[in-house]
């Protein structure tokens, strides 16, 4: 069956994927329609059909990305020194070592010359193969809006001549960070949806992880790729416990840890070790290390908060983002008490970069609540409420407001 498919696909890897897809499709179709008279033929036909689709997609891909420029190798004068830390052997350009089309496609879709939302849309469309309708649904925009976004991005690639290549060693760290940011964004977009109801959202989570695994298979030595995969697995391990049966949001301290996915946690923690070794850890490796600490703690109270505080400090140095500073303040409260953390949050409010970010007033509200400052807490919860449309989050915040304003 593989060979028959390979003959059509002209590529062993593609053929293997098509065969696997055929088995998955069989499980689904046969459980609904019953086993066909000739299961072997059904499977082979399905696999070959998928291979043909893949070929057609590839051809239309090259037609749709009108300027898939195969870059000329740089002339001698280009003289870029090979930066350390890349995976290329002996300073050769990476694309000479790994000429995989999927990798070139990913880097092209995530080029910094494209706006972040364009990078995400293009990656989902061209790398993950989602339809424009599916992507539109995932990001809660209309289909024409999403179609226009994808078209604009392709036109930019063509007009500005963004070359179809894996970046050279000098640019690789920044470019890879952009790719991983897109994958992470895909994951978090799927992750914040209420659990269970919207299949497209859960699908986004799975696709992000699958995309990460694919990139890892093509760039096995890149520590940040490993770090991100660890982060996604460790966070996703909590998927079953993020909301209760009625869809009510559960906090980390309320989640039933016995229902966390231990296989995902084992895989994640193993990956973290590898991602942290061999030099200064990157921001994804550090985020994964933080997630691993939570995953390994038998309970919220038994979490190693001082170690977490240290990790957040390292993360803030690697990634000076106000969101990281906020998360560190939350941990600070567990180590040094709510007042110290409130002072840090006040600084962040002054800073202004977190102006529309609901988790700042929400975190502040929580600390005020723990200090018994109920009026201020209610106000802060209200501020957070005005910043979110997510049903589960709104319900949670509304309940908190009721709790802190309830008469004694």
């Amino acid at each position, binding site marked *: 069956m593989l060979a028959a498919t390979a003959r059509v696909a002209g590529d062993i890897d593609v053929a293997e994927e098509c065969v696997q897809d055929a088995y998955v499709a069989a499980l689904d179709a046969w459980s609904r329609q019953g086993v066909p008279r000739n299961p072997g033929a059904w499977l082979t036909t399905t696999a070959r059909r998928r291979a043909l689709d893949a070929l057609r997609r590839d051809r239309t891909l090259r037609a749709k990305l009108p300027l898939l*420029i195969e*870059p*000329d190798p*740089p*002339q001698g*004068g*280009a*003289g870029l020194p090979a930066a350390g830390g890349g995976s290329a052997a002996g300073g050769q350009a990476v694309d000479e070592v790994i000429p995989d089309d999927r990798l070139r496609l990913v880097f092209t879709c995530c*080029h910094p*010359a494209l706006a972040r939302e364009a990078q995400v849309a293009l990656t989902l469309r061209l790398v993950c193969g989602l339809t424009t309708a599916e992507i539109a649904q995932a990001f809660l925009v209309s289909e024409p809006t999403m179609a226009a976004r994808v078209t604009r991005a392709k036109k930019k690639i063509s*007009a*500005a*001549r*963004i*070359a179809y*290549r894996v*970046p050279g060693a000098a*640019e690789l760290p920044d470019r890879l960070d952009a790719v991983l940011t897109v994958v992470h964004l895909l994951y978090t977009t799927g992750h914040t949806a209420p659990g269970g109801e919207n299949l497209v959202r859960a699908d986004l989570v799975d696709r992000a992880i699958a995309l990460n695994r694919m990139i890892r298979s093509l760039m096995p030595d890149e520590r940040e790729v490993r770090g991100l995969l660890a982060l996604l697995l460790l966070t996703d391990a909590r998927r079953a416990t993020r909301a209760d049966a009625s869809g009510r949001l559960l906090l980390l301290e309320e989640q039933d840890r016995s229902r966390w996915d231990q296989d995902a946690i084992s895989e994640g923690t193993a990956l973290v070790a590898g991602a942290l070794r061999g030099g200064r850890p990157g921001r994804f490796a550090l985020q994964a290390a933080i997630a691993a600490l939570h995953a390994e703690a038998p309970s919220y109270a038994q979490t190693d908060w001082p170690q977490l505080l240290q990790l957040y400090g390292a993360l803030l140095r690697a990634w000076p983002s106000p969101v990281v500073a906020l998360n560190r303040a939350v941990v600070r409260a567990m180590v040094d008490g709510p007042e110290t953390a409130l002072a840090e949050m006040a600084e962040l409010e002054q800073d202004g970069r977190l102006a529309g970010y609901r988790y700042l007033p929400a975190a502040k509200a929580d600390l005020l609540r723990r200090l018994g400052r109920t009026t201020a807490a209610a106000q802060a919860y209200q501020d957070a409420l005005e910043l979110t449309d997510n049903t589960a989050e709104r319900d949670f915040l509304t309940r908190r407001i009721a709790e802190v304003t309830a008469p004694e």
Partner: protein
Amino acid sequence: MTEYVILIYENEDAYVNASPEVWQTAMEAHNRFAGQVGERGGKLVGGNALQPTATATSIRDDVVTDGPFAETKEALGGFYLIEARDLDHALEIAKLCPAPYGGVEVRPVMDTSGG
């Protein structure tokens, strides 16, 4: 190779009443840049520094007005026309272009040849 324009946008205040040293530094930086374009495998086709926006005159619908077309914090101060293999190559070169009081924009030139 494709043509790209590098547009230099800078805060003009830095150059108002600037000392000769400021100008000297800028001149040397731009001369150095001109050499670097070729070293990086690109081609410098042309370019100029512009006089400040106080000298600009704009025309819209046949109406002539004093000043630049758009009042922006960083004003257009100069440009380079280069040839580069692709956008990454153009960006590699553009990053070397001196613009200490602002930044640069890189735009492909429209291909108006037939076909």
